[in-house]
């Protein structure tokens, strides 16, 4: 890093010297006399205008070759003005000004008609680019170009890598799931956090104390919460079988509604619909720390034997886990929020790290269908590893081995929004 910084420093000096040189040449060429006339610069050439690719329309990209007086020649150009008109004759309106050295400009607007600078689709426009000088009155216009009209595309080419990844991954998932359906035996390595769930429920039954299940701050649109629903449904089923009680305080009302459904169905599946209590799953509040305060209170007053934290957690992770330690509960956590994993690892008895949370639903059910998708995930990981290894070798060595075309291998994976 430090060597890089040093180089940057020298670059700065270099730029400074270059600037001084350029400035002195300009100063030498431009007469000091203030009344001196600035001659119109050479106009820009090769002007083209076309619809901007891979976008929602309402945008036109203008390209040109800079004036010969831009950074050379008479050196009088200070910038370019992009002008637009509805007819080839004009009148032209300014749509943008860019500094010298620019070669392209994107004239775009929002898709809502009536917003400022709105560009209607399928309407012909004509463009012109003026090379500007320090004197506002002195500039030279290019030949006009047009007609050109904007239109929306039906595919974003910058997302090719994502498209391929999604398609391949979907195919893998479907493949392995159908293989699993046919009864193919799939091995999965044991996960300590998952195996602890059963013991923990048993422990709660022995102690006659409830189980606390916390979703964290996720809404029903977070995938971590959706994965957590499946885990809850397994937990609730076993809780119903063991006839232990369950407390699920919720932060998000939709999560609450879904969780009520999940728990109710689980009790019915376990054949004990009468044991289900409506207020087992209840809403607390939508504010992070009020929610934490209330859950902490529940922990110290109800003294749950087991706390299960699955879903999306933020700063409250450690607050919940530490209070859980005080109440003497066994704690099992799983989250996809990277910054919070360390706190769970430190304070909880078992932690599902990141991806393991998403695998947990499959593990708990031991259903071949869900296990099949784990296999797909593993293959995808293998693909990532192989591609990364190949990529890093290509980036570092392909050039030396005379395979320059390979050096750009990584660009295949670049996502452009």
């Amino acid at each position, binding site marked *: *890093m430090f060597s*890089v*910084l040093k180089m*940057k420093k020298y670059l700065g000096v270099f730029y400074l010297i270059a600037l001084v040189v350029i400035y002195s040449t300009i100063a030498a060429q431009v007469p000091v006399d203030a009344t001196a006339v600035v001659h119109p610069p050479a106009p820009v050439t090769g002007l083209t205008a076309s619809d901007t690719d891979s976008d929602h329309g309402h945008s036109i990209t203008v390209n040109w070759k800079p004036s010969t007086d831009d950074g050379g020649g008479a050196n009088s150009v200070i910038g370019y003005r992009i002008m637009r008109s509805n007819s080839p004759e004009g009148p032209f309106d300014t749509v943008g000004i860019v500094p010298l050295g620019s070669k392209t400009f994107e004239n775009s607007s929002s898709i809502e008609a009536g917003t400022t600078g709105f560009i209607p689709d399928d309407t012909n426009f004509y463009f012109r680019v003026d090379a500007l000088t320090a004197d506002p009155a002195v500039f030279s216009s290019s030949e006009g170009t047009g007609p050109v009209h904007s239109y929306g595309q039906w595919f974003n080419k910058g997302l090719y890598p994502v498209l391929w990844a999604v398609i391949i991954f979907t195919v893998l998932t479907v493949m392995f799931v159908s293989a699993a359906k046919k009864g193919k035996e799939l091995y999965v390595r044991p996960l300590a956090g998952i195996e602890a769930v059963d013991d923990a429920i048993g422990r709660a039954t022995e102690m006659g104390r409830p189980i606390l299940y916390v979703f964290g701050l996720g809404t029903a649109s977070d995938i971590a919460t959706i994965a957590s629903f499946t885990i809850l449904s397994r937990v609730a089923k076993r809780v119903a079988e063991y006839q232990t009680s369950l407390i699920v305080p919720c932060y998000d009302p939709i999560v609450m509604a879904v969780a009520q459904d999940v728990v109710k169905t689980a009790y019915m599946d376990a054949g004990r619909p009468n044991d289900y209590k409506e207020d087992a799953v209840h809403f607390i509040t939508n504010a992070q720390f009020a929610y934490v305060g209330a859950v902490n209170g529940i922990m110290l007053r109800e003294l749950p034997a087991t706390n299960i934290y699955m879903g999306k957690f933020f700063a409250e992770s450690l607050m919940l886990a530490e209070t859980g330690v005080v109440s003497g509960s066994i704690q099992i956590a799983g989250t996809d929020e990277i*910054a919070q994993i360390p706190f769970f690892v430190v304070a909880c008895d078992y932690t599902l790290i990141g991806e393991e949370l998403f695998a947990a639903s499959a593990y708990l059910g031991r259903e071949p269908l869900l296990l099949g998708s784990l296999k797909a995930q593993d293959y995808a990981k293998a693909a990532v590893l192989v591609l990364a290894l190949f990529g890093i070798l290509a980036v570092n060595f392909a050039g030396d081995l005379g395979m320059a075309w390979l050096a750009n291998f990584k660009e295949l994976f670049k996502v452009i929004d």
Partner: protein
Amino acid sequence: MNIFERFMKLDRRWIYLFLLAVCLLAYYSDFTVPTIVEKETSAIYNFIDSLPPGEVIFVAIDYDPSNQAELHPMTYAIMEHAFRKKLRVVFTALSQNGPGMADQAIHDLADSLRVDKTYNGVEYKGRELVNGVDYCFLGYKPYYALVITAMGQDFRTPFPSDYYGTPLDSLPLMKKVHNYDDIAILVDVSGGNITDAWISYGQGKFDFPLALGLTGVMTAQYYPFLQSGQVMGIMGGLLGAAQYEDMTDNPGLAKDGMRVQLPAHLVIILFILMGNIGHFAGRKNRKKVQS
């Protein structure tokens, strides 16, 4: 129970009490914690320190009251430094709950600038800060990315008048200040993703010297921008602010905070060590019993 076992099974409340006592003691006592000034911070200080009087700097106050503890000290340190150097400051608050806080900051600064002070051996006379001459508070507008882009044309596009409702054109300071070209440096003090917008929509498009003041947690994320030269300096958390205060020789909120931080960290480390001593000593004892 011998002493080592006690080390291992201390009630957490003793830790809390001890930590609180140490924090309070440090808060009310009067000593200074030496800090090691890092390059990232000194770059910002040196740049601002070398500006001639009358230059305009831009401070973007982009944090909510929840990040006040870490970021307010930076704002105070930089602005006081600038005002003492007779620089002029334009500032915005692009975070929703920020404007009230920024307003309070400028009042506090005006108070402290009325007093004569000597920093780094240079005596600075107290003076009255004048709104519109020494500083201009542009205020808050939603959609920070658009605001940042629009300010590249002219500050007046998103902010026709300042926070207090005065049209910008009638402020003497703003006569010659139109867009980023007229400011010497932009310091973004931020606790969220507005920083990304300043880097890509501001610095990336309009190319001005950009320095960042960030919360401790965010700092590591922005080192790549320092390496690529898009950002000229970074102040990280309270530590960065304390370094800045050290360089300006004006101990303030950050040094106050560091005075608590250091003992608090040491307390936590002490307890960790105690737990480990207990653990190892206990293991030795257990082994003895077994043999």
